[in-house]
């Protein structure tokens, strides 16, 4: 949901881009072989767009689940949440605290 729309918008305008810091934790960091990545997306864009861009740029990220738990600026969000330049997106393995 929202992916296609934002893609089309991005293709339509294609000017403003956002630099997003992507963070990976625990098993996801092991799977991808890194704990963070910098990704640029054309705005408007969603967390889902960031995730797809990550998979494009970091092939090991294709091992991540299709729809991982995600956080945007320290808050859990759905994948259709909008990102802005300078945001931090985190991909969270199943939470196992306590």
């Amino acid at each position: 949901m929202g992916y296609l729309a934002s893609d089309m918008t991005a293709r339509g305008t294609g000017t403003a881009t956002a630099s997003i810091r992507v963070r990976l934790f625990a098993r996801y960091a092991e799977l991808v072989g890194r704990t963070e990545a910098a990704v640029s997306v054309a705005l408007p864009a969603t967390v889902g767009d960031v995730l797809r861009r990550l998979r494009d740029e970091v092939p090991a990220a294709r091992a991540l689940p299709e729809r991982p738990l995600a956080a945007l600026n320290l808050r859990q969000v759905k994948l259709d949440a909008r990102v802005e330049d300078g945001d931090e997106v985190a991909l969270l393995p199943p939470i196992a605290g306590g």
Partner: protein
Amino acid sequence: MPYLTRDPLSVERLVAEVSAPERGGTCVFLGTVRNGPEEQGVTAIEYSAYEAMVEAEFGRLLADAGGRWPQARIAVRHRLGTIPSGEASIAIAVAAPHRAEAFEACRFVIEEVKRRIPVWKKELRVDGTETWVDPSGRPSHV
């Protein structure tokens, strides 16, 4: 980083943070690294976290609890790093005027921790194997 620590947890210190003469009931929960019949020789668990989010999320969680139990005082500490089995990874202390509130708020906090605080654990076994714990599968603990 008030909610996270790498040191052993002190129940006494946590209780002291919440207790006061007007609060007659205190409930404490300790989650400890388990090595029981369900585990297979777990010697320790390595805890890691999205630390900045843990701090932010604990703040929101305690604000939620404070909205539900306004007279309760709550303190919580989550330990990170390698924790040997038998030692506590989380301690929650809730003091309230009456015991029902203390029990309910304490239970609420630990349930919410397990739902929303971004912490992960990797079990270290006596045979040298390591496994990430996925709570959607076999729970390793508590």
